[in-house]
């Protein structure tokens, strides 16, 4: 017997995703490029990738790691170091005689380097750290991220990392726009390209999750001892998940560098990891689409929709009370508390967008029985 799972939800999902990409492309041509919408979309796409990579560990493998900011930092730096144009290096590395690295690689190669560097560090750290369980692992990875941050700011490494000075002048999202000879933009691609980058990476993660490897990871999450008794090599699989997750966090770091246009180690704080963790939890631990949705919502709330709360607002002659600088964060925290209270398992739980229709049917079927 072969139980057939309906293909329809999958097709609907593909159509929806294609429509979103088309909408992004069209919006970019029509709306002014300074619109907040594009800031949100670009940062959202970046955070979505990092959140999904974190979900691969926390949600699908059951490894509670808080090293995401550290791996993003490695990715962002590697990207910057390999893509700053040679002519800009003397200015960027002004305190270090133009820096040690005197070559550049194409952008996509640099992004892959970013991922590989992060994965390499993950491999090294994983050797001792992955023996730990839950909270202890979280503490160890958090500590690692802080150490990385300190090392990258160390002046001794200045010729490579530029010490505590920022890296800049590397290609950013805006460089994806196609321009004519006079520097006027003919086709806007600065939002679509990050969407494509992030989309490809997330697709790869989804494919991994749905492979037999992914099934083994979920088995480890559910019951380590039983998984081991089934012959699943725990150390090997955990290391694999850790490295893959870090690889994509590194790529996400490279995208963040492109979004921010500058990179400085001191901005990759543990607060950044907590933001990502928040996105994963709100989206639903174990749901890829949940992480993607919630990262856009999170970025939109924190950067855009709640901005008005930070300014004085007048309704006629009446000044709305409480609104002042910082009030946005109060409301934001309240929203998060409400979400956590009412959607205890996140927006999506552990379901995916393409499961929604299926689970609706299933519920009806069960109700009949």
């Amino acid at each position, binding site marked *: *017997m072969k*139980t057939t*799972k309906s293909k329809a939800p999958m097709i609907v999902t593909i159509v929806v995703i294609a429509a979103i990409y088309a909408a992004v492309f069209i919006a970019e041509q029509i709306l002014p490029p300074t619109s907040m919408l594009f800031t949100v979309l670009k940062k959202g796409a970046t955070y979505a990738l990092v959140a999904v990579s974190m979900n691969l560990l926390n949600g699908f493998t059951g490894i509670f790691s808080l090293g995401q900011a550290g791996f993003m930092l490695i990715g962002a730096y590697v990207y910057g170091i390999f893509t700053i144009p040679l002519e800009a290096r003397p200015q960027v590395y002004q305190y270090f005689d133009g820096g040690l690295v005197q070559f550049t690689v194409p952008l996509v190669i640099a992004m892959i380097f970013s991922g590989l560097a992060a994965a390499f560090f993950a491999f090294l750290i994983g050797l001792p750290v992955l023996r730990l369980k839950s909270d202890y692992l979280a503490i160890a990875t958090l500590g690692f991220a802080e150490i990385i941050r300190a090392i990258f700011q160390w002046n001794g490494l200045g010729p490579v990392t530029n010490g505590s000075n920022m890296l800049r002048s590397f290609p950013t999202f805006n460089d994806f726009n196609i321009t004519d000879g006079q520097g006027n933009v003919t086709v806007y691609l600065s939002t679509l390209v990050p969407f494509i980058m992030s989309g490809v990476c997330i697709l790869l993660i989804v494919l991994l999750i749905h492979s*037999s490897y992914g*099934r*083994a990871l*979920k*088995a480890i*999450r*559910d*019951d380590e*001892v*039983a*998984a*081991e*008794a*089934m*012959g*699943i*090599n725990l150390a090997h699989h955990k290391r694999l998940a850790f490295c893959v997750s870090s690889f994509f966090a590194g790529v996400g770091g490279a995208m963040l560098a492109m979004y921010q246009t500058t990179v400085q180690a001191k901005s990759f704080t543990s607060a950044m990891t907590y933001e990502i963790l928040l996105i994963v939890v709100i989206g639903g631990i*174990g749901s890829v689409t949940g992480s993607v949705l919630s990262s856009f919502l999170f970025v939109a709330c924190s950067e855009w929709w709640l901005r008005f709360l930070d300014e004085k607002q007048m309704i006629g002659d009446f000044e709305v009370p409480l609104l002042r600088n910082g009030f946005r964060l109060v409301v934001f925290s309240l929203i998060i508390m409400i979400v956590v209270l009412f959607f205890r398992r996140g927006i999506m739980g*552990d379901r995916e967008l393409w499961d929604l229709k299926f689970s609706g049917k*299933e519920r009806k079927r069960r109700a009949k029985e």
Partner: protein
Amino acid sequence: MSLLKVTNLVVSYGGIEALKGISFEVEQGQIVTLIGANGAGKSTTLRTISGLVAPRDGRIYFEGRDITDYNTQKIVETGIAMVPEGRRVFPNLTVLENLRIGAYLRKDKEVIEEDINYVYDLFPRLKERSWQLAGTLSGGEQQMLAVGRAVMTRPKLIMMDEPSLGLAPLVVKDIFRIIQTLKGTGMTVLLIEQNANAALHACDYAYVMETGRITMTGTGDELLASEAIQEAYLGKQADKPARS
């Protein structure tokens, strides 16, 4: 030659000897059971055979090969499957995914599909619930799934740790019928039970364990007839009152 041969196995956890040198054999095609009270070392024995615990002394032979130093993965590959105590199915995976995890180390894709159908034939209930999350199954169904998952590794020897634990009497009957079915298909079963009565009726050969040692051996019928066994494990009073 026996399928599984354990000689003088010693296991200690942090200074406490859980197994004090036990030896036993499991013959091909038989149901062999280890019975005994809590803490006798039955589970430790199984965990040691499947490589989850390293022994301090003694050897384990499977089909004449020394597998004492194999890791769990290799032991599963040689053909020993375990149904762990308390079932331990993967609650957030579907029934089908649980079965596929059982076949994780196998490369023969087409045969795996056949074996899934074979398990579904053994347990039609699982087929009905193929897309359900394993955590939503009843205790008995979970036990079937745990057995099915072990069968998916294509084992020569299947080891079961307390399969009747926490199940309703009717379901326990089902489980023992399944064990007989497995035997019928040529599989060898090493069974651990506290339910001595049911285990002794089902088995071909039995070993009685007490605090890390094997104290008595015999066929199921021999032990059922033994007064000491009746007194200690079957709750029948001989001339002395049963232990409190």
